[in-house]
């Protein structure tokens, strides 16, 4: 019916939310819903949900610890590859390399696991963290869905 849609190569979405913790669920569900068009498996969708939740939680807890600020979420789908960028304009991270180490947390008194970035790296293919100018952090994550291979595997299983 709509041939324009069929030849569409890249699709994009942009979402800005306030850094309230009740928006975490909204943010991860929205990105997950956007991904559906790339035919991910349920497991892949949940991987994306978890990684987005980690990044947004970092913004809520660390970027804006005593204030409410904006979190910008941009997602892009090209073929079966998702690219999602989560940016804030908060206090920033002093030592990004250290922050990405497993179990490192700047707030140990708050029962935090320090595994946020490790989870993102484990659930996505590529995770890049950079400082924003003049302040804030940008987390860029990429994941290619192996939807076709895994759906045929599921068929084999059912057969």
């Amino acid at each position: 019916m709509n041939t324009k849609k069929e030849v569409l190569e890249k699709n994009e979405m942009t979402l800005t939310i306030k850094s309230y913790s009740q928006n975490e669920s909204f943010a991860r569900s929205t990105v997950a819903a956007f991904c559906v068009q790339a035919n991910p498996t349920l497991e892949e969708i949940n991987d994306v949900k978890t990684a987005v939740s980690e990044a947004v939680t970092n913004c809520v807890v660390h970027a804006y610890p005593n204030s409410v600020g904006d979190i910008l979420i941009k997602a892009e789908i090209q073929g079966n590859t998702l690219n999602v960028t989560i940016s804030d304009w908060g206090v920033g991270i002093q030592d990004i390399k250290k922050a990405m180490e497993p179990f490192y947390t700047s707030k140990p008194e708050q029962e935090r696991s320090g595994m946020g970035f490790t989870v993102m790296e484990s659930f996505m293919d590529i995770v890049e963290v950079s400082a924003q100018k003049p302040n804030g952090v940008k987390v860029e994550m990429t994941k290619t869905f192996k939807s076709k291979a895994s759906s045929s595997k599921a068929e084999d299983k059912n057969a």
Partner: protein
Amino acid sequence: MQVKSRIYNNILYIALCGELDEHSSVYTRMTLDEMLGKTIAKQIIIDLSELNFMDSTGIGVLIGRYKKMKDKNVPIYICNPSIQAERIFKMTGLYDIMPKIN
């Protein structure tokens, strides 16, 4: 988030239902501490079959409760984690202190 519990044969069964993230962690922590604080159970089993979502915030919540029950010598076990929760548990070594049971 809904936290359900029942006690049977000196075992406290706790079911976490819903989504465990930073937002729901405050309520979850408080509710669990209330349940664990007054329990006379000899062991605790946390059932995650109705937990639709969990991120690494959940690890902080679970380890915090483990520390509290360790002093009372009450072991905590985990059952029915999702694929994502299982991966987070494995990468953090949570099963070393809260073994998985079926």
